[in-house]
């Protein structure tokens, strides 16, 4: 056997079990990147065949047809056809088809065959097919198709053995191209019907268990109830499992910073290590637990087949604000933190829907805004009953959450109407069979998400954190200074300059200054305010200090500002990473700034008139 590398492209319809097969073949030896110039994920893995030959496998995006409708489908088409720039044409195409869904999947096999490249058909999920009493005459199918056919069970250890043996042998000859290959759709479907009639016997069109489950899951009442419970669990888990670990990581790095800086002489270097480096690491790594908890749910829900059902139930509701049913889970999790939410938009197939979801996700009130809300509400909103039952403080907090949601709906609606591309967004979503998710596939998925976040974002966020530290630390206070050091720093100057911008919405220079470190992480606004108002710690004393020095109108304006403001920089960094476009970062920052400014302006002016 030659020692040269054999390039294999894995293609198939969505839900054919292609990725599970890819995981089975390559294990953890995968490289995840993006295709040049687009945000479509490129997954490549390699393994050594028994013959000693190196097999390099490219897991192409799933598609129903080579007549591409979306960027990821175009990539599958172009790579298979061998004309994607920078991507060598595959030596062999392995077309994966779900043995229980051949009516749909065989058509794609015929389409791939027409490319005139060597093809092997992997009939996947043969175990499920047997359980359901489906029999397939494989030799006859192979004869009629004119390409080698092997059986695989991607979710079982050793389930890809036949495929490995086949691709390790001689590369099959490319299927002959008939002269009149411009077959129409009807022709392809007619060929599929012929093939099915000759080789497949199917006792039942669908699995009984799917029918039974769907009667409950898609029920107008019970379905929505089940959905509400699932959503509640996801939200609770991100908030109450992810958040404490996140806080613990932040505290842990804070403690480590203190320990290390205790050994260092006081000065700028000590401050850099403590506040810049360890503080920044705590912030970055702190996102990881929430990301992993959310993705655990997203992957399990997607693999089990429930996510498309949830999208089915919610589609009408989300469509009314220019979104899709699949936007719901990323938006829900953005209430904990927008970072995992934006990463979670990968399950949205339409690129326009995905972008809208990414842009409005930061409007969901994330948990980092709570300390700021708690401080200002505690200081300015009296504990009073409204309508005899509600606590006024609670009402204000609720209104802020509601303001975020209404703002997001407004932005979604506006985006729908100003978009140049007015073509209809399609749903056309397959509801696959229910499946038990496999631990290995979930683990590989989680590992990939975690690594992507750490590799691509640690540097950026850490760099920005250090920059923020630099701005708030230098230049240092002069000898005999009586005011807090931050007032003499660049941040102090910027804060004083910004007060002219923010005066119409009622922010004095102290508030303007606090907005600068808040850009690194919103919750640090509290600490910054404590510093400028010379209050030790960030406890109740700060509330009283604020109440004495800021007007109620300014406080309300600041609350509204935090509901809409373009923060934090980690969110902007993840938008850059997920959309690969500075333009989207600029749009996102710009629209939120305008929206926050406008809303705060109205609140401040109205509150001043009334008071």
């Amino acid at each position: 056997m030659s020692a040269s590398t054999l390039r294999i492209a894995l293609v198939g319809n969505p839900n054919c079990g292609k990725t599970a097969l890819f995981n089975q073949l390559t294990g953890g030896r995968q490289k995840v990147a993006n295709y040049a110039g687009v945000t479509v994920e490129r997954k490549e893995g390699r393994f050594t065949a028994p013959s000693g030959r190196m097999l390099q496998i490219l897991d192409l995006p799933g598609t129903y047809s080579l007549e591409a409708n979306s960027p990821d489908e175009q990539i599958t088409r172009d790579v298979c056809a061998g004309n994607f720039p920078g991507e060598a044409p595959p030596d062999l195409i392995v077309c994966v088809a779900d043995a229980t869904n051949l009516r749909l999947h065989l058509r794609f096999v015929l389409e791939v065959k027409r490319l005139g490249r060597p093809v092997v058909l992997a009939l996947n999920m043969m175990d499920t097919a047997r359980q359901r009493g489906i029999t397939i005459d494989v030799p006859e199918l192979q004869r009629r198709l004119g390409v080698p056919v092997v059986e695989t069970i991607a979710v079982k250890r050793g389930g890809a053995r036949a495929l490995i043996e086949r691709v390790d042998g001689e590369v099959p000859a490319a299927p002959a191209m008939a002269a009149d290959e411009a077959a129409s759709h009807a022709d392809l479907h007619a060929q599929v019907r012929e093939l099915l009639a000759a080789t497949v016997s199917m006792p039942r069109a669908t699995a009984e268990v799917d029918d039974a489950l769907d009667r409950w899951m898609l029920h107008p009442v019970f379905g929505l109830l089940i959905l509400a419970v699932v959503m509640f669990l996801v939200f609770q888990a991100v908030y109450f499992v992810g958040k404490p670990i996140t806080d613990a990581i932040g505290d842990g790095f804070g403690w480590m910073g203190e320990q290390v800086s205790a050994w260092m002489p006081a000065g700028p270097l000590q401050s850099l290590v403590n506040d810049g480096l360890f503080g920044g690491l705590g912030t970055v790594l702190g996102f990881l637990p929430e990301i992993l908890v959310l993705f655990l749910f997203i992957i399990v829900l997607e693999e089990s087949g429930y996510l498309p059902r949830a999208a089915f139930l919610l589609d009408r509701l989300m469509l009314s604000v220019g979104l899709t049913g699949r936007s719901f889970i990323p938006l829900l999790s953005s209430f904990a933190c927008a970072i995992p939410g934006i990463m979670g938009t990968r399950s949205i197939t339409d690129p326009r829907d995905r972008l809208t979801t990414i842009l409005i996700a930061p409007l969901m009130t994330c948990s980092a805004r709570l300390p700021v809300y708690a401080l200002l509400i505690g200081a300015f909103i009296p504990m009073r009953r409204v309508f005899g039952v509600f606590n006024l403080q609670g009402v204000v907090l609720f209104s802020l959450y509601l303001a975020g949601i209404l703002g997001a709906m407004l932005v979604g609606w506006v985006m729908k109407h100003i978009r140049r591309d007015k073509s209809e967004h399609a749903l056309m979503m397959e509801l696959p069979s229910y499946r038990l998710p496999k631990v290995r596939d979930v683990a590989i998925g989680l590992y990939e998400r975690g690594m992507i976040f750490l590799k691509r974002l640690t540097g950026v966020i850490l760099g920005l954190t250090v920059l923020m530290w630099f701005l708030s630390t230098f230049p240092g206070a002069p000898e005999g200074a009586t005011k807090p050091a931050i007032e003499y720093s660049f941040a102090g100057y910027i804060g004083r300059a910004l007060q002219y911008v923010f005066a119409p919405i009622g922010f004095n220079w102290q508030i303007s200054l606090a907005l600068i470190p808040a850009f690194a992480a919103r919750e640090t606004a509290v600490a910054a305010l404590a510093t400028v108002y010379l209050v030790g710690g960030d406890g109740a004393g700060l509330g009283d200090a604020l109440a004495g020095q800021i007007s109620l109108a300014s406080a309300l304006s600041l609350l509204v500002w935090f509901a809409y403001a373009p923060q934090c920089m980690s969110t902007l960094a993840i938008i850059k990473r997920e959309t690969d476009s500075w333009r989207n970062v600029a749009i996102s920052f710009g629209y939120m700034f305008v929206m926050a400014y406008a809303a705060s302006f109205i609140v401040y002016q109205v509150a001043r008139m009334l008071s």
Partner: protein
Amino acid sequence: MRLSDLPKGASAVVECVDDAQAADPIAQRLRDLGFVNGEPVRVVAVGPMGGDPVLIQIGFTRFALRRAEASRISVRTEVAA
């Protein structure tokens, strides 16, 4: 008759998919998914809000289609025995 006009549980046979505009990619994709003349379909479920989307069984597969998508599909209800 349009597929979007069928009530929940009803069966029909596809006649054709009509382009909503010239070179309609959605109509094209529907044909790729198997909505071609003679293919039996059934409305399995409808969405909880306004009966939108509809869940269609075609072949061995279930597709959720928005009403605007399903209305591109022309069907006949008399099922050939």
